[in-house]
């Protein structure tokens, strides 16, 4: 798993993708920092992370995940990967963690907004860390969706479009019918943005991620039979 994680991470930063993602993220953070903290004179960073999670991840998740399996399938390198003595679970987790690390790097950089706010006002470190924890969880969930999309096609663009569509539709899913409300990922983030650690949200987001990780593994295993 470590080998895959290392290589995936290297690939992100050997191509522009890693930098583009961090760039977009920081742009989101800066814009929302201006809109929530600067313009309103608030010292609460929860809103900053909430809006970045809401709008940023819709763009970021597909960019980070669309290549994952689609490209391997297209170039045939999946043959190298799937004939190596590494279980599909480890392959999937290796790739997911690599994408997550790119997000973590940005979150680390985002701490500068905390530093700035702290310098000028009295902001709470705990509630900021809770917001970041929630951000990590919601990132894992959205990245899992993207990874799944990437595993079902060999076209990265299609994988990206599936992910974006899913994430956008999920925003409104709850308002269509309450049955779908558990697909409105961002709702689970709300408590975190208030600095509250909600067990329900944590479990929901983790279950959501597990669902798509499992689906990805099933797709990859199934392909062995029909390829």
């Amino acid at each position: 798993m470590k080998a895959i994680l290392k290589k995936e991470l290297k690939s992100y930063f050997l191509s522009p993708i890693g930098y583009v993602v961090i760039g977009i993220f920081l742009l989101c953070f800066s814009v929302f920092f201006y809109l929530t903290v600067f313009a309103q004179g608030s010292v609460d960073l929860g809103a900053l992370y909430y809006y970045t999670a809401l709008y940023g991840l819709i763009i970021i998740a597909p960019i980070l995940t669309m290549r994952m399996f689609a490209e391997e399938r297209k170039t045939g390198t999946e043959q190298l990967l799937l004939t190596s003595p590494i279980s599909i679970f480890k392959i999937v987790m290796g790739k997911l963690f690599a994408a997550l690390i790119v997000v973590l790097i940005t979150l680390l950089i985002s701490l500068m907004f905390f530093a700035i706010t702290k310098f000028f006002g009295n902001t709470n470190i705990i509630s900021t860390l809770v917001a970041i924890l929630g951000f990590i969880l919601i990132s894992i969930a959205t990245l899992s969706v993207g990874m799944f999309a990437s595993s079902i096609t060999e076209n990265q663009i299609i994988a990206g479009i599936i992910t974006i569509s899913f994430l956008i539709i999920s925003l409104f899913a709850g308002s269509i019918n309450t049955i779908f409300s558990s697909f409105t990922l961002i709702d689970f983030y709300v408590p975190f943005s208030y600095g509250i650690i909600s067990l329900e949200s944590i479990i929901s987001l983790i279950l959501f991620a597990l669902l798509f990780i499992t689906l990805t593994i099933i797709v990859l295993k199934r392909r062995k039979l029909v390829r």
Partner: protein
Amino acid sequence: MIKLANVTKKYGKFEALKGISFEVKDGEIVGLLGPNGAGKTTTMNIITGFIEQTTGNVTVDGIDVLKKPNKAKKLIGYMPEGVPLYNELTVKEFIKYMAELKGVPKKEIKENVQKVLEDASLLDVQNKLTRNLSRGYKQRVSLAGTLVSNPKVIILDEPTVGLDPKQVTEIRELIRKLGKEHTVILSSHILSEVSQICNRVIIMNKGEVIAIDSPENLEKKVSNKNIVYVTVEDTGNKVIGMKEKIEGIKDIKLEKTNEDGTKKYAIEVEETKDIRKTLFASFAKENLTIFEMKKADISLEEAFMKLIEKGENK
């Protein structure tokens, strides 16, 4: 080392493999031979665990590929068709990654990478991105990646496709060398290649194994014509008439007339006879000067075509 028993692979109603069985012994170099669509790649993909067979058993060194896939995969080095490489990595990085994927112990990685870089003569391009390499180099990088874990079994899918003649010779030499310490299976549709490197040939067509034997035996098996080619100075057109004078000749045909006036004849002889001595003496008596005489051996090419035709007529 490798054993396939009644392996089938179905895609819906289409049967890509119709129950093939064969065994490859330790240290053998075996060639899978067949026209496109014969099922060679499917067979290799099944052995390497990339795809799963519909029915049947595959074992590598006694390990069932389906039951303990990771253990089996560790023993195998696979170079797939079309040499897939990670474009964003350099040659060295790629080979190192392959070693890590295959679970080579950390201490040995550096040494192994260095060794295969040397073996595949890649030292001068080791820091180049794989995407910038020519086809021949890519092939060698892929091969090096296959060898880096020092696997017991090496499976090469069309290892010489797209190479220039010099590179083909080099790769063949390398494969022959590998055969001393490893079990090698390679696929090809070039017969001369297989007959040069392999101890045994498995001929496949339309998802079936139609023959397994050594290249020499295969040639023998299907050769049923005994033909001698002679090139003579035959100004009087006497050769055709020799048919009646020498016993055992079935037929004499003029193959071609050369620029220097000599003519090449194909003389078909009864099967078991070697007629060359008699021919020489009789031709001399008739004042026919022989410039060249050669017993035709049926080429593996013909053997292959015949076996395939036979299989299809069944």
